[in-house]
């Protein structure tokens, strides 16, 4: 019976008080979808700021107006301001007779090595040869893990299919060595042997571990990779913000270089484990402003996707 009042309510000017209860619900919804709490709050505040004082359209309810505004805000956050075109840039580097270098970094166990192998597969599928630099010289089995991937990838792409060329090779110096030095040797070797791309695997490290963060900064500083990718898992909660902020801060503070080399993009892994709790995608891009270059969706080589911002936002806002 209240439907007859719609029009009256419908044409009113929105106040913060009108919006507050709806936004409160929306915030809880975002948190339940695994958006970091303070980012959920900031998002809702930005929606409030946008809508306050606006006249509500005749047919729209407050809830639907909020939802539309929030959708737009999230799509904007997730849409890259800058496109990372690895294939094009790697081809350019090849023209210039130098290898294109990508460094993978992130906290422990998020999927750096596995997704490095997936990126490797994708590069090889696109005709580029790859040298994997085993710069995790700490974690047990890290080198053997990469060696296994190299063997499997070469079996999928045997030299016979590539003019006798072995498409994937491993550069390793075992355990306990300085990772920055190994990366440097690997890059030099790739240059000598005309290998197109160098993928640098690094050890997982906690963002507060200063010695390890310094070591990563050194690796990045002395080798100046073309791309520094931060690998984060879609499972991560509020920590997403802290991880990214502190990786960037360490890269800036410890490098004493102007401007410092920071994170250029994100790989969001384990997207297959979270159903519709897609909030980490928003937390990570909101925090850095950097694009999600790849999404990891499983444990096989083909489980690597591009982010579909609209689809992610749709599942974010779905009840």
């Amino acid at each position, binding site marked *: 019976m209240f439907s007859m009042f719609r029009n009256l309510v419908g044409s009113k000017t929105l106040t913060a008080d009108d919006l507050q209860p709806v936004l409160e619900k929306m915030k*809880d919804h975002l*948190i*339940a*979808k*695994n958006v*970091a*709490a*303070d980012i959920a709050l900031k998002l809702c505040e930005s929606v409030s700021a946008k809508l306050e004082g606006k006249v509500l359209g005749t047919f729209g309810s407050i809830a639907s107006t909020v939802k539309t505004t929030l959708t737009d805000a999230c799509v904007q956050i997730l849409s890259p301001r800058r496109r990372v075109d690895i294939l094009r840039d790697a081809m350019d580097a090849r023209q210039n007779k130098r290898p294109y270098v990508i460094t993978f970094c992130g*906290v*422990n*166990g*998020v*999927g750096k*090595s*596995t997704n490095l*192998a997936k990126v490797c597969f994708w590069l090889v599928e696109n005709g580029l040869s790859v040298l994997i630099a085993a710069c995790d010289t*700490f*974690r*047990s*089995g*890290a*080198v*053997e*893990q*990469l*060696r*296994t*991937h190299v063997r*499997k990838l070469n079996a999928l792409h045997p030299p016979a299919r590539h003019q006798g060329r072995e498409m994937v090779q491993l550069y390793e110096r075992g355990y306990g060595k300085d990772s920055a030095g190994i990366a440097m040797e690997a890059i030099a070797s790739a240059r000598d042997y005309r290998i197109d791309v160098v993928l640098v695997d690094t050890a997982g490290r*906690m*963002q*507060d*571990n200063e010695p390890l963060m310094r070591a990563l900064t050194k690796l990045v500083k002395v080798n100046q990779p073309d791309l520094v990718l931060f690998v984060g*898992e*879609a*499972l*991560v*909660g*509020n*920590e*997403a913000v*802290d*991880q990214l902020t*502190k990786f960037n801060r360490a890269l800036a503070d410890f490098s004493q270089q102007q401007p410092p080399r920071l994170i250029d993009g994100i790989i969001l892994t*384990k997207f*297959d*484990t*979270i*159903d519709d*709790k897609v*909030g*980490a995608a928003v937390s990570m891009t909101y925090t850095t402003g950097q694009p999600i270059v790849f999404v990891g969706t499983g*444990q096989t080589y083909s489980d690597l996707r591009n982010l579909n911002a609209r689809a992610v936002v749709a599942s974010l806002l779905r009840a």
Partner: protein
Amino acid sequence: MVLADLGRKITSALKSLSNATIINEEVLNGMLKEICAALLEADVNIRLVKQLRENVRSVIDFDEMAGGLNKRRMIQSAVFKELVKLIDPGVKAWQPSKGRNNVIMFVGLQGSGKTTTCTKLAYYYQRKGWKTCLICADTFRAGAFDQLKQNATKARIPFYGSYTEIDPVVIAQEGVEKFKAENFEIIIVDTSGRHKQQDSLFEEMLQVEQATKPDNIIFVMDATIGQACEVQAKAFKDKVDVASVIITKLDGHAKGGGALSAVAATRSPVIFIGTGEHTDDFEPFKVQPFVSKLLGMGDIEGLIDK
């Protein structure tokens, strides 16, 4: 300390009660809002947080209550009870028995820290004089056996695994039989990471359980996990008989509140925490002392028992 930040925020919220001259609906709501925000920032499951709020609210009836002191006490006690519920499933932790075989199976999501923690646990018992060993029943992850082998070798712990056998059930069974025959006391079985959306891998986990008949199944959870923990933990519990939880990576910045929802979902206690990548970065975890410390209050026991 783990969750220390959270403890501080909760204590300060509770203090706001003591500072208020009268305790009314508004004061209670303000305090609950603060506590819930702190819990959410620590990744505690939002459903559990809402429940906590409801439960505390339902205990307090302002119309029926008399003196201010009584109200304060009732509210504090209700909050304590709810917080303890988050961390304490109310069941006793499983303990291995000396002089017989104790088979322990590790399960968990990909990359949560199972393999690392297997060695930590084996090392922990070995140092206490138990005869311990490790079995690698992960034939899926590249380099998994090398990882376990290198860890075990460094810690001088006997291990079993295979580079050629592809069926983890076979390896687990063979390993357990071999080590049982050799009278090992703590036999730890490491398995591949998996998640609930992978039906066949969940089925495989069940088969490993049936083949090895573990005395204890430990669910390993990463402290950085957010809201997805609960459904995953529950799915593991529904499939196999999880009885303990270990939370890893608490040396980082993470508060570990997300991982705590594994306690509610599996109705299993946290028995150890991982605090680093090294084999001795490992601590036993006891619920009650933890809660007292967390809330920085001496008289909790008294409050909860009321």
